């Protein structure tokens, strides 16, 4: 498995090995734990994670600020 830099100091969810939609469900549940304007990191290696996280952000009014599989960063907007 690819080494992941662990410098992210916010909430990080390691969903590697999980099949979609599980990683998206985890993001939806856990994003409540961070403040509006803060960042959440998702590690996910399901090939659907990239497109589905982007679609989730669009549907839920959040912003995908980083997408470089298996690492994704979401900013909570609401």
């Amino acid at each position: 498995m690819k080494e992941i830099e662990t410098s992210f100091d916010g909430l990080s969810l390691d969903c590697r090995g999980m099949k979609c939609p599980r990683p998206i469900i985890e993001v939806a549940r856990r994003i409540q734990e961070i403040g509006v304007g803060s960042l959440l990191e998702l590690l996910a290696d399901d090939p659907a994670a990239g497109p589905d996280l982007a679609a989730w952000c669009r549907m839920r009014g959040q912003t995908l600020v980083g997408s470089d599989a298996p690492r994704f960063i979401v900013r909570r907007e609401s």
Partner: protein
Amino acid sequence: MDGAREVVASAVGARPDEVIFTASGVHANQAAVAGLALGRRRVGSRIVTTAIDHSSVLAAAAAAGSHEAVQVDHEGHVDLDRWTASVRTAGTAAACIQVANHEVGTLQPYAEAAELCQRQEVPMVLDATAALGRIDLREAGGWSTLTGWAGAFGGPASVGILVIKKNARWRAPYQIDDYQGGRWPGMPDVPAIHAAVVALDCWLRSGRIVGERQHDLIDQLRMGIVQRVPDVDVAGDPLRRVPHLLTFSALYVDGETLTLELDKAGFAVASGSACSASSELPSHVLAAMGALTHGNVRIGLTWTTSAAEIDQFLTVLPPIVAGIRATVGAS
């Protein structure tokens, strides 16, 4: 066989001797792309497609040489400016576009694309596998090869259609024999072809009325789903589309579970990628459009689908989706 070729030719504005029958729509697409690439190999080996073409077209384009897949917008329409620039690029052997997308139903600007290709003297593959019989293609214009599939209009899945214009620089990309003018090898399956053409003829004679009814039913379905099920992403162009298709994705829901639950409720629907159902990869069509790829259902109406069945579907769907979401702890 003469009668069969005549029916197809009349549907697409071609001559009967330009029509051949293959073993599937996939074979027709592969032969359409590879044959033009072979015929034009002195010009180059670049093939232009859209990002949401059928997987058989994308694979044939990649195999031919260099392949550029032009981006589409959120509803699936190809960016015609980028398409134009790509077709004009030196070394382009052929370009491919769909009449309508096989998963989301969106119509492409195929007539404009064909005109453009003709001006650039680049041969064009028009993939009508999802549209033949449902969209009037008699004036579709300057394509070089056109493909169809009987399975998409109620005929046998084992019949594909390939129309090769007489003036097209197409060469058979496989060993040939005497059958079908040396354009598709092996003895044609005449009974299956006959069945395919009977189905096509039904659509050509009375399909307009059925198509209008299906268009309205899909409108009702689209509106009903958005109203009754929260967090649903309905894909494709709501207006400029084939009459009978609708694709939507429900957030937090596993597509296979949703398909199974709908099956138990008496509805046979498809999920995931319409072109490669066994694949665990997300649909390249939905991904390219920026649509949600999980929890995906593709509905294709049949000739006899009724308004009562649409109502019934809209009644069973919300509790099924809510039930799956509750099971996985999502709401």
